[in-house]
């Protein structure tokens, strides 16, 4: 119980700091203090500065705003799409998910980037990138959901509901949803962090969140330099934050599963 409360408080805090980033952050995410690049944590800069003299703490706050809202939104979109696709169950679907899981979606991002006007505001392109991620990621959850739907189709209560003449959509909404909800929630929990990370690797290709807008993904990219971490452990801040958020979510699910 105490875990659950702590997790809740933590998540609320993260959410608040994300929403209030422009008010809370000491500096803008793009402000460059060119006299003090790579400053150590402390003093004027809570977590130090990056190599262009930008305040890491402010960047982390803004990044949190981006990642904490958009990655879960994308995950939710994937799960939602998966549910919609699962409405058409059967062989066609299993083929579709197979194709969906095997084709190189990366090109869709390349195409998006190419079709987007270059002067698109960075915020818009960030949102679109995550939205596309959400769309492209439907196949995984669809496969899992269709598995549990198939199981449900076999259930006695499903047949009974049919024998009572209940409309198909009511069966789906009232009878099936309580069962699917936990599966969907588990998929959501797995996808949200996956999308935070996916954005990071897309960033390497220039398809993610571009300079100078920060995101957990592009802050995590600094971790590729193990030695920089040794010199400045503040680089681990985004990873620690991501982990804590996942843990907090997990604390809920432990409770849920005990129920």
């Amino acid at each position, binding site marked *: 119980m105490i*875990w659950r409360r702590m997790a809740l408080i933590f998540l609320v805090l993260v959410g608040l700091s994300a929403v209030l980033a422009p008010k809370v952050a000491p500096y803008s995410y793009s402000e460059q203090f060119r006299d003090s690049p790579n400053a150590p944590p402390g003093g004027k800069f809570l977590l130090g500065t990056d190599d262009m003299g930008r305040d890491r703490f402010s960047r982390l706050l803004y990044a949190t705003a981006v990642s904490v809202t958009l990655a879960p939104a994308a995950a939710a979109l994937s799960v939602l799409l998966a549910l919609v696709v699962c409405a058409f169950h059967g*062989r066609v679907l*299993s*083929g579709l*998910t*197979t*194709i969906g*899981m*095997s*084709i*190189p*979606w*990366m*090109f*869709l991002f*390349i*195409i998006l980037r*190419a079709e987007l006007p270059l002067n698109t505001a960075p915020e818009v392109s960030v949102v679109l990138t995550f939205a596309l991620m959400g769309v492209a990621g439907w196949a995984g959850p669809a496969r899992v959901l269709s*598995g549990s739907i198939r199981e449900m189709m*076999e259930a006695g209560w499903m047949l009974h509901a049919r024998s009572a003449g209940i409309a198909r959509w009511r069966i789906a909404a009232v009878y099936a949803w309580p069962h699917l909800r936990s599966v969907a929630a*588990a998929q959501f929990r*797995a996808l949200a*962090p*996956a999308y935070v*990370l996916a954005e*990071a*690797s897309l960033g390497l*290709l220039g398809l993610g969140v571009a300079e100078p807008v920060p995101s957990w993904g592009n802050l*995590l990219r600094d*971790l*590729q330099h*193990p030695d920089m971490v040794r010199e400045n452990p503040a680089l681990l801040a985004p*990873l620690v934050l*991501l*982990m804590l958020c*996942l*843990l907090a*979510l*997990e*604390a809920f*699910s*432990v409770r849920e*599963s*005990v129920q």
Partner: protein
Amino acid sequence: MTASGRGVVALASKLARSLAGLIVIVLLGGFAAAALVRYSPGFDVDENAWNTKGGSSAAEASRVRRAQENELLPFYWRYLKAAVKGDFGESESYRVPVAELLQDRAPVTGRLAAWGVAGGILMAALCGWLAVWPRVPVLELVVSGWVALLLAVPPAVLALAFFFREAPIQVAVALAILPRVFGTIRAILRDAHESPALLAARSRGLGTGVLAWRYVLVPMAPRIMALAGVAAMVAFGALVPIEALCDVPGIGQLAWKAALSRDLPLLSALTLIVTFVVASIQAAGELMTPETIHSKEVAE
């Protein structure tokens, strides 16, 4: 017709149907990939066109070569015709037959993936056991925390960390798979744990080994097999960045390079293979759950 004879015929027709489905899916997947590659920007420019030695005539030659592939449908048709004969064309970026590239690299990726899947599932099973069996909430939270930590670290970063510490990358792959199969394994173990059959067996005083084998592993085998399939897909997904970043000369690295250089023949081959693997896993899963189960249930 005897019952067994009918069974064989039914199985054969089922096999034939799933094989046909498999082929259709693989073809469609390959086509979808080829279309995506073909219509992505930068397809008909050579990625090396910037900053290469002089060569406008070489650039021209490369443009002409790519122009031949401009027509998607004819390309795909030609490609498939050749592929049936085992010829997957020549890679644009390596200038080496695709088949040769794949042959060189498949074992590397295969070994990494096999170790990763086996290790990941075993470790996940251990974690799941710790989370389910002792029924200690703190332990459950600790295990969840550990899994969340693994989930938060990008597989590639994990692999790099292992690499720089000169530790085996296979372990990193396994650790990347662990959190992604953990949820399912935990559910399987919980179901097994709570199954009445297990309780009944316990009441008969059976040993732990027998319990684990007969009442957990054997009844859960289809789900575990399905899970292994999922884990294999996770592994291939994770191996692309891992191989690309750690310079492991495997299929994943190949895919990464192929994507960056819009290497149509190579990418088509890779998609055909990946689709085939994914679809086979799917088909195998379907074959393992016999339809006859319902008819019996209802008839009773």
